[in-house]
């Protein structure tokens, strides 16, 4: 009997040691960071930012990414997984805000602190929201194009995914800028779903219909790059194209003149700041409820900063953006 007890105690202590060695019981906190896909380099930037700041502040990160891009079913089951593993902090961006809100609310009620970043995830008691203003990005980049055109000309818009918060807000920004420029005429506004192939094909179609396009606004880099290809092969490579995001490939296109300008939607900064604010909040500091990181307009004049690979960038301090 005694030996069996001893053996059990031995077993328990081995398990306990194992648990203690696992990240959940290590010195630093465990952060569960959600991103939407492994396809868009933007989210690569978010993940790099989270990793860098977490390392700096002594926490460890578990990345949750659906294997199929923006797959809501997988996103939901990963949320449920987090409900069981109970990390110290969840950084959450929604794939479908409406569908995921109830699960997020339950997660928060059960005592897991959640910070909302990148995209707004509906109304729940989050630690804070860290992101950028898509409306403002859309407005700024549209104005950049219109000013470049001297306030007059014909433009087309390549929208994002209809019904997505990002796409709709950016479109609202484009429309607001259009209202301020009475001599800019909107020839067409068609969906390219943030995709490259659709950007190319929709642009090819619009070229057939309109011989007098003076400028193109795309809701994302991939669509803009597709559109620029279409314009180039139609012999209209001089038509200026602007977009939103600023992934390295697109910044290089700004450098070589294929794109005129990009409104910066900087995943790396969002990842850094969200992690810093979230960790400070769970360590008992008072943090702002809403941090909006301003986006620069990337042009040929200032593009070099965005050509640096994500892994080699340095996180900005959250304090830079607090109160803006």
């Amino acid at each position, binding site marked *: 009997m005694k030996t069996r007890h001893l053996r059990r105690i031995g077993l328990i202590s081995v398990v306990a040691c194992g648990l203690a060695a696992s990240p959940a019981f290590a010195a630093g906190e465990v952060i569960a960071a959600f991103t939407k896909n*492994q396809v868009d380099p933007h989210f690569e930037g978010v993940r790099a930012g989270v990793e860098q700041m977490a390392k700096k502040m002594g926490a460890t990160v578990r990345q949750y990414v659906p294997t199929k891009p923006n797959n809501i079913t997988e996103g939901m089951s990963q949320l449920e997984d987090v409900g069981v593993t109970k990390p110290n902090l969840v950084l959450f961006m929604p794939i479908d805000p409406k569908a995921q809100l109830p699960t997020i609310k339950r997660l928060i009620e059960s005592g897991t602190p959640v910070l909302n970043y990148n995209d707004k995830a509906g109304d729940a008691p989050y630690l804070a929201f860290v992101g950028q203003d898509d409306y403002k990005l859309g407005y700024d980049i549209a104005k950049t194009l219109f000013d470049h055109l001297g306030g007059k000309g014909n433009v087309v818009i390549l929208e994002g995914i209809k019904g997505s918060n990002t796409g709709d807000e950016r479109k609202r920004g484009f429309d607001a800028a259009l209202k301020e420029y009475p001599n800019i005429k909107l020839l067409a506004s068609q*969906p390219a779903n943030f995709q490259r192939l659709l950007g190319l*094909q929709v642009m*090819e179609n619009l070229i057939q*219909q309109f011989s007098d396009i003076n400028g193109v606004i795309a809701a994302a880099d991939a669509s803009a790059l597709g559109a620029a290809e279409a314009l180039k092969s139609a012999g209209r490579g001089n038509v200026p194209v602007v977009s939103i995001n600023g992934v390295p490939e697109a910044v290089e296109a700004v450098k070589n003149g294929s794109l005129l300008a990009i409104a910066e939607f900087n995943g790396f900064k969002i990842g850094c700041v969200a992690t810093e604010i979230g960790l400070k909040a769970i360590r008992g500091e008072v943090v702002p409820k809403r941090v909006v990181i301003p986006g620069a307009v990337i042009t040929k004049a200032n593009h070099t900063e965005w050509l640096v690979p994500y892994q080699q960038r340095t996180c900005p301090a959250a304090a830079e953006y607090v109160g803006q």
Partner: protein
Amino acid sequence: MTTMDTPAPASARSQPLAPGTLAIVVRLGLIACIGVLLSSLSPGFATTDNLLNILRQASLLFLVASGLTLVIIGGGLDLSIGANLTLCACLSAAAIKSTGQPAAGIVVALGCGALVGLTNGVLINRVKIPPFLATFGMLWVAQGIAYWFMAGQVVYGFSPAFRFFGSGFWLGIPLPIWVMLVTGACGVIFLSRTTIGREVYLMGANEAAAVLSGIPVARRRTLLYVVSGLMAGLAALIYVARLNAAEPGIGEPLLLPAIAAVLVGGTSLFGGSGSLVGTLLGAIILTLIVNALNLLNVSASWHPFVTGVIVVVAVLADAAVNRGARR
């Protein structure tokens, strides 16, 4: 491959073609209807440029859907084509970038496509996994390898020599259209003029009968999946050459349109009937819809609805005509 040249018996040749011809007429009618409607509404539609534009856009969809058509006629299904395209595009783009040789990219793309197809065939024949599950599994495997390989990056910027393949012209006609016409013609000849082609129809219509009549069903099936994979590889090359970039999210959005092109083209999902000409028309119809919506500047909210309605109308028209023909 001596059987390739053997003409099929006349009776076997005419039997599945008769209702097929009708289906093709119905689709041409639908295309004509959309065409007439559009040319009256939009000045940009009925121009040579736009027609070439539509065909060039349809070519990518057709290439992906053509291999799928063969597989479906043979009684199978290939859900891995989109992911296969992604993987081949990423691998071949990387191969071209690192060697500077377009030929290396072509070899990698076609090899990768054929290998994924061969794996599908082995999973179905040897491991006895149903086609839906086997190819669904390969979808994830191919996609997964592409994610791992690319690590969130985009490979872009290729030499004009390679890009000619996707964006060049020959005799005033874009190269992708030539590729579509040549592969389409080869496929049509394969299906209707070779013994193996006829065997594919029989396999899809009644597998047990095909086995009993001595057709090496397993080998034929593997062949179909390899061809489907090769087509995905070829489509990947066209994609990279046209868009000048490869990223791991490009193929997935093509899977459902490819299935739709096959079905709108009149190929039965249950196997045993259908044609590549139908799939070509199906791909053109689907491309035409997006072209029309763009030209008429229809609001984004209506795009999915209109596409859905036209797909359903095409399938219903087919069913109605078939019923009429049977009476």
